[in-house]
């Protein structure tokens, strides 16, 4: 069986559908803006007519912000509830469009809007079941990570202060690699469910476990590294921006979100290429 190089061709598929990226970014932005409305209203009621607000514009004074948050006029629970609701809606949105994303990358032809949403709806419940199934291995990885944290805490007794910290970081990295494998595994299963119409979700998941190739896994790991690296680089750039340049900060932050969305889509496209390469 030939294994075509998945990375560049997968990227090509992602970049050939820029509207999909823009659409996902747009929905993310709108949902986040809606989630921020209660905070804007609450903060605005206190800050908009107060000279004390300058401490948050020219720089960011942590003391001022802490005082703002602890003000009785700020309904903290409501603010976080709004963000929580946004996360839930986003989660359902992503689940819904995943079928359409795989269908888009899995066809040579450009899908119409109706075909896109047809693919979304057609695969939705299978993808829900696959997501629920994936919680098991993710929970297992979480458990392994918890054990690693406990182990690293036990190393606190070592005279070398760094031992425990190094162990924790190594554990984090190991857990990250395991999570990436689980992600690649279930992306592959999702792609098969959508592109090949496969059902019997639990058996699909078990069968797909052995089909995760080294090439695909390495692609996923590399993309995680790229995502982290670019995010860190952009954050370093953020630290150089003047504190009052809110517009530039907004654009930079959206660039970070764009990097995250694009690399995630790239991973999915790589899974599609892997399915195409299967017998």
């Amino acid at each position: 069986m030939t294994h075509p190089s998945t990375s560049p061709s997968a990227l090509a598929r992602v970049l050939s559908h820029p509207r999909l990226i823009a659409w996902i970014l747009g929905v993310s932005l709108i949902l986040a803006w809606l989630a921020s409305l209660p905070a804007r209203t609450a903060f605005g009621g206190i800050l908009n007519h107060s000279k004390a607000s300058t401490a948050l514009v020219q720089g960011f004074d942590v003391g001022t912000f802490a005082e703002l948050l602890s003000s009785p006029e700020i309904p903290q629970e409501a603010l976080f509830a709004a963000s929580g609701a946004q996360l839930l809606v986003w989660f359902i949105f992503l689940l819904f469009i995943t079928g359409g994303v795989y269908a888009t990358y899995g066809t040579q032809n450009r899908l119409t809007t109706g075909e896109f949403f047809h693919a979304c709806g057609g695969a939705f419940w299978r993808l829900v079941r696959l997501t629920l199934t994936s919680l098991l291995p993710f929970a297992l990885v979480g458990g392994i990570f918890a054990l690693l944290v406990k182990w690293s805490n036990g190393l606190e007794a070592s005279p070398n202060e760094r031992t425990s910290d190094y162990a924790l970081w190594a554990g984090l990295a190991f857990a990250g690699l395991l999570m990436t494998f689980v992600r690649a595994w279930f992306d592959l299963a999702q792609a098969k469910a959508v592109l090949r119409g496969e059902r019997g979700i639990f058996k699909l998941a078990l069968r797909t476990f052995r089909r995760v190739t080294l090439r695909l896994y390495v692609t996923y790991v590399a993309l995680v590294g790229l995502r982290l690296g670019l995010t860190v680089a952009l954050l370093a750039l953020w630290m150089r921006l003047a504190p009052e340049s809110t517009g530039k900060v907004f654009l930079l932050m959206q660039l970070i979100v764009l990097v995250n969305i694009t690399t995630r889509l790239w991973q999915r496209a790589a899974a599609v290429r892997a399915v195409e390469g299967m017998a």
Partner: protein
Amino acid sequence: MTRWSVCLFRPLALLAGAMLPLLAGSPPLSDRVVAYRIEGTYDPKAHTVTALETLTYVNKTGQALDRFPFHLYLNGFQPKATWIKEAHRDGSRDFGGNSGWDAKKTGSQEIQSFEVEGMGDLKGQLQFIRPDDGNPDDRTVVEVKLPKPVAPGASITFKIGFKATFPEVIARTGYKRDFLMAGQWFPKVGVFWKGQWNCHQFHASTEFFADYGTYDVKLTLPASYHFGSTGVVTSEKVNGDGTKTVTARAEDVHDFAWTADPRYVVTEDDVLLPSGKKHIRVLMQAGRAPSTARYLQALKGTMQKFEEWYGPYPYPQITVVDPPHGADGAGGMEYPMLITCGTSWKMPKGAMLPELVTEHEFGHQYWYGMVGTNEFEDAWLDEGLNSYSEVKVLDALYGRTTGVLNFPFATAGGRSLQRLSYSGVADFDPMTRNGWQYATGNAYGGTTYGKTATVLLTLEHLIGEAKVQEALRVYFMRFRFKHPTEEDFMATVNEVAGQNLDWFWNQAVKGTARLDYRVRKVNVERADWYAASGADAGKGAVSYRSEAMVHRKGDFVYPVTLVATFDNGEVVKESWDGQDRWRRWEWVRPAKLVSVEINPDQAILLDLNRFNDSYVVKADTRATSKLGTYWMTISQWASQLLAWLV
């Protein structure tokens, strides 16, 4: 300084210490009530010190004394002791409220023999007393009744054999692996103060109180251990059996603490102050070299400022101890001539924690060390004055808004954090409350540290920064090596200020009133608002009627200055005594009101809500927009993390 220089400076430090007796010709700095001689052996495997303490007490009370109470602080670390009871109830930085009891946290001080010169063995006369809460299981104060009293002016010598068992680090003392911080490790006599013995039980939120005197301590410990202590090491003799005996002497101090750890990396340095050259010893954990420089820089800067502002540091040396990881409970503590700090190998430059803790703990050399206030009853006099000094020194050395956090994306200064700590507990307890009687540990911390600092910073607004500094200087010089009271402090400030500030002290120090003035309403309209658009309206220059109302929301009465700014650049200042519940001002002029402010530069730091101290007519949404953008961004990032599950 590099490690090789330890070889050069160590002998010099010993020489300096050895010369101390020669310098004894200089007059004592304090009324030396006590002279402790302690000779003991440290067993690092059992975490114990077995020692003989010879205490000579000079009765300068003017009364005959027939009983003497002693603190046995280490007994506080037992499950039923008052300290643990209170920590379990309120939580403490060292002991979580819901933690089970860990036997390693047990400490004890056992008196094995108790003789009094001329009176014989009085061990049978020892009785535990509980003057504060009557807890029958608390053994942190023991009292001896003498068969015959000590006459005024006479002295008495106690010979006390004791064994101190250290807990794993808790509340500033204890061991962790091979490290030991030995604080409150010997039986310590109480203070005869205000006509009676003052010897409180050990409480979770209180510290200590003792008389000034001299300490001569001789300790035998493993030869591989580095040793640091209050005072100066005068000799170090290797015994040939794997141990060494270290002798240290301290004069005109009210406590003696020491530390030992084979892993210390020792750095010796000096600082030249107006009062002369002082030696610095830093006992650092390996792998934290960058923080050594930070400690030294902060310490030297702080010492310079304290001498410049308050008075001389008279001792020859200061030792800085860096506790190891896992022993954070031993960090951030002061003893005469020895301070413990705190850092980690990954402490970023912009997190000024090493600097802050070094500054704060050195500051205690003045407020507590030399001005020996009662930390049980008047905790604000040391913690609060020191927190105020901390803000001033950090401002001077590292910037007013960057003294605590200094990152490109976030900053924080000392004064806003002091205020924040107080604002959450503003109406709980007065500053004058006894340290163990606060509502919660947070109330104790927020009031003694944060509120006191905030009160003194607000005092700058009342009488001027220079006057406050002068008052503290006078207070220090007048009461160093003494035990002043709250009234002494407030009277000194009144004297220096040249005015009676009792109206301020009664509210700020002795009361719990909240200070909150707010700009409640601002209105701007044409003065001829009643005129229809026609003949009467708009003829000639337009006149505007501007109005502002200030409301005293809290119960604290404080004079207020309102600053009104108009769009023609005019600035008007109006004064108000702040007595009534509200006050309205009105201006009619050919200019519109742009803003009003009642707390310019946030000088009235006690005002609990800085956001309502001003009103800008034209909304400035930049801060809201910025916070909203970050809120959105964090929501989006959280969404991207969630995308990993789909």
